[in-house]
């Protein structure tokens, strides 16, 4: 979103989508030239001295797009700011994040969404696209000024009360209908509130043993089924946030088979972790929707592989220490995830053979960009690496292994559930409109 045109960069011997090594010339914010490795001479390409990246061994994917990021600003700058959150995003290979509306004040007016959008522009680490609240104050009572947010400088297309479910069926219907006027989408946090009163973790064998109030799968599935039927009825776009159960995957598969305009996302943590972790009573594992069972994890992976689930979204949810260093019930739900998303996707999807690199490009970049209504989205993974594509790129070493150290993450908060885990894949460089935001794994 920078207005100045970036200086040209030459990426040498990079492997687009994990394929054959190639030289990529980035100029004018786009991919200007693609040639066999060694095919573009730095001297002839008009590239300034330092702007050559020897990318031997690195894979390139289109820059990731996160549909679900909590940047916490305004309101909880002790947990995260637009600056710190977008640094984490860039380091995780992201070039766009959708900033959720549950800030304080809530992003339910043109004024607040424009403030967040401007903070994103001035930080400059990645594009920040504010999500607007569906209802005033996330209270689920009255529609917020959706149109005003859509026509503001922030050009909001995604609306969500995330953190809360738009549980009133009539209000949900109206919201779905209303945003058709500006091709908006309602991103629903699917949680039937009466079925989840006091809920702490997935309802099942573990919650029974641990004596914690259960968050039943049906509380998510019932809302998804209802909303899919509503979306089908009014012909609107519905996006389902953080799908977490096997039953949800089935319902979404069914809704898509009907031809309804339903899309869905899954978080990295729901692809990897299970509710057994709650036995530690460490709230670093407390998240909403909660970690589910191994069967759910398997169904989510299968759903992401076959496209039933369109996108990976982090639900990056930073929390200050005092909101996590507590007993489980008192802790706030959520996990940071921007810097670990690619690694978890590699471990859970690529390494088991469920997704190839083009598939990762689709699920982590192209599909979320389309769902979020971004302009200029390449039609497929191949063209995202071709001449004329926006020069939003993520370069990473798929062979690298790294140990997650919470203190080493760029987020202001430390609540990663992957502490001490060794994960595959490390982001080396991120280019946003042809300009490096990350080089050598460090913020530029």
């Amino acid at each position, binding site marked *: 979103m920078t207005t100045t045109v970036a200086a040209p960069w030459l990426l040498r011997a990079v492997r687009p989508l994990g394929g054959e090594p190639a030289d990529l010339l980035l100029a004018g914010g786009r991919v200007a030239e693609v040639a066999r490795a060694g095919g573009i001479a730095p001297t002839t390409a008009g590239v300034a001295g330092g702007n050559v990246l020897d990318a031997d061994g690195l894979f390139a994917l289109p820059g990731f797009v996160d549909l679900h990021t909590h940047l916490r600003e305004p309101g909880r700058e002790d947990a995260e700011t637009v600056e710190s959150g977008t640094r984490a995003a860039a380091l995780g290979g992201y070039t766009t994040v959708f900033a959720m509306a549950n800030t304080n004040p809530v992003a339910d007016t043109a004024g607040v969404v424009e403030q967040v959008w401007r903070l994103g522009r001035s930080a400059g680490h990645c594009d920040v696209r504010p999500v607007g609240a569906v209802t005033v104050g996330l209270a689920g009572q009255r529609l917020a000024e959706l149109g005003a947010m859509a026509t503001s400088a922030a050009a909001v297309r995604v609306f969500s009360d995330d953190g809360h479910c738009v549980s009133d069926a009539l209000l949900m219907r109206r919201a779905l209908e209303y945003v058709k006027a500006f091709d908006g989408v309602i991103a629903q946090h699917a949680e039937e509130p009466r079925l989840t009163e006091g809920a702490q973790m997935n309802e*099942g*064998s573990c*919650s029974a*043993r641990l*004596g914690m109030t259960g968050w039943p799968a049906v509380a998510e599935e019932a809302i998804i089924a209802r909303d899919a039927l509503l979306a089908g009825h009014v012909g609107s776009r519905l996006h389902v946030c953080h799908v977490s159960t096997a039953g949800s995957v089935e319902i979404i598969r069914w809704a898509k088979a009907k031809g309804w305009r339903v899309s869905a996302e899954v978080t990295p943590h729901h692809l990897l972790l299970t509710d057994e972790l709650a036995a530690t009573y460490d709230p670093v594992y407390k998240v909403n929707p909660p970690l589910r069972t191994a069967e759910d994890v398997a169904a989510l992976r299968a759903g992401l592989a076959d496209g039933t689930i369109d996108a990976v979204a982090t639900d990056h949810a930073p929390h200050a220490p005092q909101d996590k*260093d507590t007993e*489980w019930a*008192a802790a706030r739900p959520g996990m940071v995830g921007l810097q670990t998303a690619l690694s978890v996707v590699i471990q859970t999807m690529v390494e088991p053979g469920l997704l190839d690199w083009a598939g990762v490009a689709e699920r982590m970049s192209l599909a979320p960009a389309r769902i979020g209504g971004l302009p200029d989205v390449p039609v497929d993974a191949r063209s995202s690496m071709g001449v004329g594509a926006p020069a939003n790129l993520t370069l990473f070493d798929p062979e690298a292994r790294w140990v997650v150290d919470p203190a080493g993450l760029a987020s202001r908060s430390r609540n990663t559930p992957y502490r001490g885990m060794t994960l595959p894949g490390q982001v080396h460089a991120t280019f946003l409109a042809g300009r490096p935001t990350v080089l050598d794994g460090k913020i530029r």
Partner: protein
Amino acid sequence: MNRHLLSTADLRRDDALLVLDTAEQMARLSDRSVKKLPTLRGRTVVNLFFEDSTRTRTSFELAAKRLSADVINFSAKGSSVSKGESLKDTALTLEAMGADAVVIRHAASGAPHRLAGWVRGSVVNAGDGTHEHPTQALLDAFTIRRRLGTVEGLRVTIVGDVLHSRVARSNVWLLRTLGAHVTLVAPPTLLPHGVADWPVAVSYDLDAVLPGSDVVMMLRVQRERMLGAFFPTEREYSRRYGLDADRAATLPGHALVMHPGPMVRGMEIASEVADSARSTIVEQVANGVSVRMAVLYLLLGGAGADERKPDDQYGEVADR
């Protein structure tokens, strides 16, 4: 056994029997005129109660005092805790006071587990949310063993609000470990969703289960549960799941009736049953002190793993 007593699920059979055997010796000592023992002189036990429970707190206090430990009652009310101090900050305060053991009662399941990660001393779970109440289960097993000679092979029926009961959970794991056969009886709304994975039988029909029970444990049913639509009315609950005299008469002659207290007479248990010869309700209170003495002795009566001399780890070197 571990440094802490957080859950009966962590207790191996040997550990559980050691607690019961030790409690037996403690009970004998409690029968003599001089009840005080010098054993834990110089040790500090903190009672950290975030929920009011005079009964349990007093029992732990008496147990610690009989062993000559210094006891600090740190009740949440009127302390910094009620002014919003976090559990972690409270833990650091106790740590600074040099607590050798913290006995914690808390409304949040798992709070004792968290505390155990923040203090060096031993943590004893005196009831956490709807999770566990290990010393209650130990004193129940102790009471059963004193009355019936053994726990092994007995058919124990637990009746009532299993869903919200920390007593039920601790008893299920401990009784299983000690070889009893447990049947849970409750309306389906008051059984946890994952109960099928527990090592128990489940029934909705109290009358069918009572004649085959050696022990029946009645759980307290809180009237508030009605508001959550767990059952329609007190009257209906009492008719279907209350232990009245007619029902108690269908129990085998030797069968015991237990209740962890405080009981709601007329709701889950009729007065004439609570006061009958089969009832162990008063003994349970006395046994609670012996069992808690045993637990405190076993946690604090020896060297901590870090204070022990390397030589002594096998316990075979002469006491020098």
